[in-house]
């Protein structure tokens, strides 16, 4: 692993350990934002700029704000644990070990002989531009070749958003209607 990536990984590890140790939840929410920014930086260095941008916008932007919104409804301090629990730590360590074991079978980063670079990618790289005249291949695949898939994702996210909004406050329709009557 190149030294800069290694340093960023170490910083990420330090951030996560600090988040786990902090009792001040506001500070923990801020530090999760830092962790997202670090992850975004790593993604950029690995040439996945679109993934990195999603990580920065959602991880550092939206979810920090959502955490703070949740904090405004609860307390800012973590409750004291009476005793350390062994079972959750064991489960987390086992899951992490299983995930790391899973990465052993993955091809090395940037390996030109990896299966994924020989299945569909050469044809897509060669033919995308003349087929649908979009220079950015990733965008072409997401918005055209996999257009129905992306459309389905958008519908799912929209439905979830409408559902949550209805559950939380009825989209403010009642309140706004009440205000209208008062004013008129």
């Amino acid at each position, binding site marked *: 692993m190149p*030294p*800069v990536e290694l*340093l*960023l990984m170490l*910083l990420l590890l*330090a*951030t996560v350990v*600090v988040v786990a140790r*902090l009792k*001040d939840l*506001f*500070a923990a929410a*801020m*530090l999760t*934002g*830092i962790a997202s*920014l*670090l992850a*975004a*930086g790593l993604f*950029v*260095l690995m040439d996945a*700029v679109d993934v*990195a*941008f999603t990580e*920065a*916008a959602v991880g*550092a*932007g939206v979810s*920090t*704000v959502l955490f*703070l*919104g949740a904090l*405004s409804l609860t307390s800012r301090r973590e409750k004291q644990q009476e005793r350390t629990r062994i079972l959750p730590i064991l489960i987390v360590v086992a899951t992490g070990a299983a995930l790391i074991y899973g990465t052993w079978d993955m091809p090395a980063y940037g390996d030109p002989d990896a299966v994924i670079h020989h299945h569909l990618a050469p044809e897509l790289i060669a033919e995308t531009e003349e087929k649908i005249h979009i220079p950015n291949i990733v965008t072409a695949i997401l918005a055209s070749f996999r257009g129905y898939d992306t459309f389905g994702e958008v519908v799912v996210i929209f439905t979830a958003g409408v559902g949550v909004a209805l559950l939380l406050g009825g989209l403010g329709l009642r309140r706004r209607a009440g205000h209208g009557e008062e004013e008129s």
Partner: protein
Amino acid sequence: MYLAGMAAIVVTMFLALARAAIGPTVFDRILAVNMFGTKTVLLIAVAGFLTGRPEWLDLAIVYTLVNFTGTLAVLRFARFGNLARDDRKPDR
């Protein structure tokens, strides 16, 4: 040159992280996160220019926007306790 620039940015990132972890006030932490975002922008810009991908600068500019908006939202939360309403006046 690439390594020196990146190392300098990573060291600054470490300092910002330390400030965010230690605090002690809310505004120290907010400023630390904002600074960390700026360092991420710098990291992308340096990586882009020194590895021959200057188009990453556009990306870095969008990160600046996200960082700015996020900081505004967090500051608003720290002052008013919520994001939408203005029912509590700030104490001057």
